[in-house]
C-alpha cells in the first residue's frame, strides 16, 4: 500500500512539472498583457504581475482592428474545417474500406502530396489565385485548403482500426457503402473526426504566410497578420504586444476548453467494447 502511494505521488510530481513547462509560456503572456510598460521591460523580470493595467487591451484595439480580424479568421477557419471534414472522410473511407482500380497508386499520390512542402506550390498557387481574380476574397483564403491529405491519412488509420465484426454485421443487414459510411463509420469515428475538426480549424486560424500573400485590404486580413503588425509597430512595448497575443489566443483557447472532451474521448464505449 505504501509503495502504491509513493508511486502515485511520483506520478503527480512528474505531471505537475510537465504541466508547468506546458502552461508557463502562456500564463506568462497573460501576466505580461496586464503589466504596465515599465514593469514589462524591467529587470529582473516579474514572475507574477505587480501592476494591473487592463487598458492595454483597449490600447491594442486602437492600433489595429482586432475584432474584425478575429471575425474574419473565424469565418475562414470554419469554412476550411467543414470542407476538410467532408472531403477527407469520403476519401479516407474509399481508401480504408473500398476496393477499386488504382487504389494503391492513388493512395501513394495522396501520401506523396502530404510530403510536398507547401512552399513548393506557393508561387504557382499565388499565380492561380491571382488569375482567378480571387485575391482579397474568401474563396482565395479557403478553396486551396479544402482538401487535406493529412486528414485523409488520419481518418484512414482510424477507419482501418474499426473492428471487422462490424462490417460483417452490416453486410448481414444488406447495408451498402453509403449507408454504412453515414450510419456506422462516421458516428463511430467521432474521436478522429473531432480531432481533425479542431486541428484543421486551429491550423487555418493560425496560418500566416498565405493570408499575408493574398490579402491586401485591412478588412480581409486575418488575426495572425494583426499580431505581426502589432509587433512591427510596437516592438518595444512588450505589454501591448502580449495584450494582442492574449486576445488572439483566447478564442482558440476557448475552443480547446470546449473541444477537449471530444478530442480525447476515445471510441464511444457501448458500440465497440461490448
Amino acid at each position, binding site marked *: 500500500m505504501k509503495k502504491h502511494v509513493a508511486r502515485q505521488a511520483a*506520478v*503527480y510530481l512528474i505531471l505537475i512539472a510537465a*504541466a508547468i513547462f*506546458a502552461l508557463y*509560456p502562456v500564463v*506568462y*503572456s497573460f501576466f505580461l498583457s496586464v503589466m504596465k510598460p515599465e514593469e514589462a*521591460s*524591467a*529587470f529582473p*523580470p516579474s514572475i507574477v504581475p505587480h501592476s494591473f493595467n487592463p487598458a492595454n487591451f483597449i490600447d491594442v484595439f486602437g492600433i489595429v482592428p482586432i475584432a474584425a480580424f478575429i471575425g474574419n479568421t473565424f469565418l475562414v477557419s470554419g469554412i476550411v474545417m467543414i470542407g476538410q471534414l*467532408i472531403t477527407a472522410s469520403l*476519401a479516407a473511407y474509399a481508401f480504408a474500406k*473500398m476496393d*477499386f482500380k488504382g*487504389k494503391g497508386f492513388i493512395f501513394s*499520390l495522396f*501520401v506523396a*502530396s*502530404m*510530403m*510536398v*512542402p507547401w*512552399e*513548393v*506550390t506557393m*508561387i*504557382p*498557387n499565388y499565380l*492561380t489565385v491571382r488569375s482567378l481574380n480571387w485575391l482579397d476574397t474568401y474563396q482565395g483564403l479557403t*478553396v486551396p485548403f*479544402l*482538401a487535406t491529405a493529412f486528414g485523409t491519412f*488520419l481518418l484512414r*488509420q482510424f477507419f*482501418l*482500426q474499426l473492428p471487422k465484426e462490424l462490417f460483417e454485421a452490416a453486410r448481414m443487414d444488406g447495408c451498402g*457503402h*453509403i449507408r*454504412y459510411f453515414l450510419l456506422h463509420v462516421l458516428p463511430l469515428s467521432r474521436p478522429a473526426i473531432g*480531432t481533425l475538426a479542431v486541428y484543421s480549424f486551429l491550423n487555418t486560424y*493560425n496560418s*500566416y*504566410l498565405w493570408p499575408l500573400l493574398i490579402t491586401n485590404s485591412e478588412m480581409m486580413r486575418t488575426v495572425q497578420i494583426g*499580431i505581426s503588425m502589432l509587433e512591427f509597430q510596437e516592438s518595444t512595448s512588450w505589454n501591448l504586444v*502580449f495584450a494582442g*497575443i492574449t486576445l*488572439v*489566443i483566447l478564442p*482558440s483557447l476557448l475552443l*480547446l*476548453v470546449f473541444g*477537449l472532451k471530444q*478530442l*480525447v*474521448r*476515445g*471510441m464511444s464505449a457501448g458500440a*465497440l*467494447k461490448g
Partner: protein
Amino acid sequence: MSELDNRWSLPAGTSRTSAGRRLRTVSLKRLKVRENMLAYAFLAPSLLLFGVFMFYPLLRSVYLSLYSTDPAGRVASFVGLQNFTALFSSGLFLDGIRVTALFALLTVPAGMLLALVLAALTHNLLRGKRLFQFAFSLPMVLSVGSAAVIWKFLFHPSLGMLNYGLEMAGLAPVPWLTSPKWALFSISLMTVWMNLGFNYIVISSGMQGIPDDMYESAKIDGAGPVAMFRQITIPLLSPTLFFVMVVSIIGAFQSFGQINILTQGGPMDSTNVFVYSIYREAFVNFRFGTGSAQALLLFVVIMLLTLVQFKWVEKKVHYQ
C-alpha cells in the same frame, strides 16, 4: 475484394447451375464496376482540389526550376540543370540537409517520448485528469506566430525568464538565440513545446481506443503497469505512433515560422533549415529558379524518408 462483399447478391439456390454461375459473374462484374464508380466519386472532391492546387503547381515548379527568372517572377531564360548544380557546388543543399536532420533528431524523438509518457501517466488518473489533459493540449492552440513571439521574450538575454531562472539557480546565463552553438537547440526546445499539444492529443486519443478488458485480464494474470505498457499499450498503439512519427518528421522538415521569427536562419546559418533557405532564395534574393530547384530537392528528400518509413516501419505496426 472490399470488406463489404457482395455474396448476397444472388439467391443461393441458382448459383449451383451453370446459368447461375454465368449470371453470378455478370452481376459480380457489375457490382465491381459500381464499387469502382462509387470509390471514385468519394475521391473526386479531394482529387480535383489536389489537381488544381497541388499537382499542377508542382509541375509548374519543375518548369520554373529549369529557368532563370527576373525579380518579378517572369521566366527569363532556359538554364537546364544549372540551378541544381549551383545548389550542390555552393553547399547550400548539403548544409540545409545537415541542419534540418539535426533539427529533426532534436525534436521528433523527444517530442514523441514526452507526449507518450504524459499520455500514459494521465490515462488512468482519478484526480485532476481533465486539468492535466488541458495543460498538455494547450500548446496546440497557439499559432507558430504567437508562440514564437512569446518564446522570443522568454529567450531574451536580459529580460527573459529563462536566463533569470538560471541565474536564480546559480548558473551562468545562456546565449539562447545569439550563439551558433545554442540557437538550434533553443528552437528545438520551443518546437518540442509547441508540438506537445498535438502529439499528446493524438496519442491520448489512441489510448482511449484500447479496450479496458485487455488491461483487466492482464492484471488478473499479475502484470504490472510497466509490463502492461510494453506489452499491451505500445503494440496496440503502434498505428497511432506510426502516424505521429510520419507527421512529426515531415513537420520537422517543413519548419519555417519559428525560425523566421526567432533567428532568421542565423547566427552564422546555424538554424538555416531547408525551408528557410528556400524562402531566402525565392523571396529575399528573388531567385525563383533556384528556389524552385531547392524546393524540389526538399520534396525528394522528404519523399525518400517517408517511403523508408512505410517500407520498414509499417511492417511492425499492428492493426486490429
